[in-house]
């Protein structure tokens, strides 16, 4: 472990897909993940995914995850779980804690596929136990099978808020209301329709004012907003809830890229500040690559494609693929990504990605 050709940080869909592409053509690859289980977010996504047949549409996230793990095993890549990467240093050195030991691993190429962190909303009472992030709730309910509460207020109508609401209903909780500050539902209408017909009120132009309770969440006050986003006085309503779930967006988890000295830029549709990368997923530092949510908040299917792209480019740069072979493979990946970044929901992300790549060329 003191020297590898490719060190991948993060065993989510992006990191695993990169490992498959690189290791299957011979790159000596190791994947580090701080979790006990590989798969990143996929194992808590028990719903059926969109996409086309080429993206395994219709399969559940958890099954897409199992499939990736099977391919990793066949590719020869090694996965080291329960292993935190705590630093990256000059000369492509990766600081790793594994089995309670601190190890420095030198890598010819590094791929950062660390995913995202959840945005939080601060409001009076937000530190009470029972106020939780959507990702945490999804992990509790779908992975550990623990219901965090019986009556939930959901904040945010993006796909995450809509899907986690649905999964809470499946687990037997009641979603008392879903509030959204914008004047429209942010996520896909089909996801909204599922919870709506099951009886969940969706309140646009509403937000949370405060949470109250003795040592834990017992009530939440919600208010209506006007078209400028200001509170309309007198519209307060108090709901009896024991969980308040925040689904207010994600931000790229990019500390390691900061530490390494990657150049950053701000692209709002991709989640804010993130490292620039070129069309090979390479950052401003030669030999350092990114893929998945760290390179822009999108979804698991795009993370898989970006991971593949990075894996192919890395294999090419190490001489395991000829330029001709790599070009063909990259083209296939780019075609599939383009299909995903299309339509009214996808086109903004496609344009933002193009901006990001353009900015990587500026000096």
């Amino acid at each position, binding site marked *: 472990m003191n020297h590898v050709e490719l060190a991948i940080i993060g065993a989510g869909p992006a990191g695993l897909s990169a490992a498959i592409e690189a290791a299957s053509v011979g790159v000596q690859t190791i994947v580090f993940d701080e979790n006990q289980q590989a798969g990143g977010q996929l194992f808590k996504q028990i*719903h059926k995914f969109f996409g086309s047949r080429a993206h395994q549409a219709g399969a559940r996230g958890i099954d897409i995850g199992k499939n990736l793990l099977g391919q990793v095993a066949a590719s020869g890549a090694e996965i080291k779980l329960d292993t935190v990467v705590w630093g990256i240093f000059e000369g492509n050195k990766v600081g790793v804690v594994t089995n309670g030991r601190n190890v420095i691993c030198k890598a010819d190429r590094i791929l950062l596929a660390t995913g995202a962190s959840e945005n939080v909303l601060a409001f009076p009472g937000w530190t009470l136990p029972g106020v939780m992030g959507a990702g945490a709730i999804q992990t509790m309910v779908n992975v550990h099978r623990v219901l965090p509460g019986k009556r939930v207020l959901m904040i945010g109508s993006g796909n995450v808020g809509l899907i986690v609401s649905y999964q809470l209903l499946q687990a037997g909780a009641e979603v008392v209301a879903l509030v959204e500050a914008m004047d429209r539902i942010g996520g896909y209408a089909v*996801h909204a329709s599922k919870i*709506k*017909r099951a009886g969940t009120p969706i309140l646009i132009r509403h937000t949370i004012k405060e949470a109250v309770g003795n040592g834990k969440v017992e009530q939440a006050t919600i208010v209506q907003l006007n078209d400028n986003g200001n509170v309309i006085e007198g519209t307060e309503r108090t709901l009896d809830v024991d969980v308040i779930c925040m689904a207010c967006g994600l931000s790229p988890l990019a500390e390691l890229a900061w530490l390494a000295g990657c150049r950053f830029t701000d692209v709002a549709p991709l989640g804010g500040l993130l490292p620039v990368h070129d069309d090979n997923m390479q950052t401003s530092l030669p030999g350092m690559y990114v893929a998945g949510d760290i390179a822009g908040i999108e979804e698991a299917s795009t993370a898989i494609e970006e991971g593949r792209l990075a894996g192919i480019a890395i294999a090419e740069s190490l001489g395991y693929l000829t330029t001709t072979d790599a070009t063909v493979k990259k083209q296939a990946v780019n075609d599939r990504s383009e299909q995903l970044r299309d339509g009214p929901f996808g086109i903004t992300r496609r344009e933002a990605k193009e901006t990001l790549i353009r900015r990587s060329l500026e000096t």
Partner: protein
Amino acid sequence: MTLIKDGYFSQTELAQLPGMPSRERLHEGPCVVIECAQQIPCDPCEAACHEGAIEIGDSIINLPKLDPSKCGGCGLCIAACPGQCLFVVDMTYSDTEGTVQFPYEFLPYPQKGDTVHGLNRGGDIVCDAEVLKVLHPKKFDHTAVITVSVPKEYAMEVRTIKIKGNHHG
């Protein structure tokens, strides 16, 4: 009421969908109703139908287009749709009743013969529904497909059920 503000369709929005069979067609026999209105990257419905009744075409963001003359109302496409927006409606079930087939992912499943609440797209209870069939073969991958009978006037309203006494759909 509009889709992006309330999470369900107005009648006008419904009528404009390329996956909506005509009133006349619905009265001829069972037919799929495709309530898919946004250009999202998705296409499993197209491959799920072996009769070729659903077409997406070259770009996966196209809305699914229905050829009602090819649809026999078998319901095999329902569980394949990750958006859970395919339904089969049969207006010819009896003189007074029609049937609705819909996807269902809540446990416990209702039993054949149960009388349950019929819920509309907005989650309101609109009528009683009788459970005629509950299918969940392995191929449906944990999405059950349930058939209920409801008074005819509610067959284009009811889109899910609630077991009496339960709080969710």
